[in-house]
């Protein structure tokens, strides 16, 4: 079988060029780390999982068939690494928060109903955060707060918002990677964004 075109990222690694490899792991470090943190909780375990992901990638790249993009394959390795670490942990910590309710796919309103009058108009309308300076909006402190808000989301929403809005994946890449429908991808994204916006509103006021 002839594949249409070799994945340029895969070709970069297989070509053996160290600078190209470094470029790749720089590109994916943030997204991989954020995703790993969402599964494992702390930064140190997350960094460790990212390292193992790259080591596994190098170990098995000769067997990679190119059925998905290199990126999807790499992130799949990370999810497997993180899951197996969680399993090891849950033997030590009984009843981890794996059984919490997750209504990510529900069609209930994502925006607090108290924000609206009986006729559906705003009671207290948003203000565009026009008074918030750019450097505060995009600053470290705000980022740290947003990371906490993401971590507080149900797992299904968390992975969607991390892939879409943090890693910058397309809707199609995300729903394929997570094996979910287009509609569920969008509902989860909607709920996650609404929650993060609400957390930002609270923080910025």
């Amino acid at each position, binding site marked *: 079988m002839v594949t249409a075109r070799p994945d340029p990222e895969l070709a970069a*690694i*297989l*070509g*053996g060029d*160290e600078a190209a*490899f*470094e470029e790749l*792991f*720089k590109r994916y*470090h*943030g*997204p991989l*780390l*954020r995703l790993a943190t969402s599964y494992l909780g702390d930064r140190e375990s997350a*960094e460790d999982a*990212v*390292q193992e992901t*790259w*080591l596994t990638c*190098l*170990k098995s*790249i*000769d067997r990679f*068939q190119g059925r998905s993009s290199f990126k999807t394959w790499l992130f799949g390795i990370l999810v497997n690494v993180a899951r197996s670490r969680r399993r090891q942990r849950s033997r030590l910590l009984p009843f981890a928060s794996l059984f919490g309710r997750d209504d990510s796919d529900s069609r209930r*309103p*994502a*925006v607090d*109903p108290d924000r*609206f009058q009986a*006729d*559906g*108009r*705003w009671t207290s*309308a*948003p*203000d*565009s*955060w026009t008074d918030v300076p750019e450097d505060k*909006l*995009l600053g470290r402190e*705000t*980022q740290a707060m*947003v*990371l906490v808000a993401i971590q507080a989301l149900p797992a299904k929403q968390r992975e969607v*918002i991390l892939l879409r*809005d*943090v*890693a*910058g994946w397309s*809707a199609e890449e995300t729903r394929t990677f997570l094996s979910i429908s287009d509609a569920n991808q*969008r509902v989860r*994204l*909607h709920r996650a*964004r*609404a929650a*993060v*916006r609400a957390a*930002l*509103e609270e923080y910025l006021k």
Partner: protein
Amino acid sequence: MTCREVVELMTDYLEGALSPADRDRFEQHLAGCEGCTAYLAELRKTLRVLGGLREVPIPGHLRRRLLAAFGDWRTSSRVTGGPDREQ
């Protein structure tokens, strides 16, 4: 459409998933509603904050470890006939 309905369609709107008729009604509402326009502006700012989380500097120890692993991989795959293997 009411504000309460419009905010629940924001993601569908940004994703281009509304039918042309719904998109028109959505945009008509937006044109006459400061509150919903502000909500959309806040969502867009939220997306910028989220995008700002993409880049994280790599700790030196991790960079060194991975470059060393890459060097080892390159050496061993040359020995075994890679990296230019064909399938």
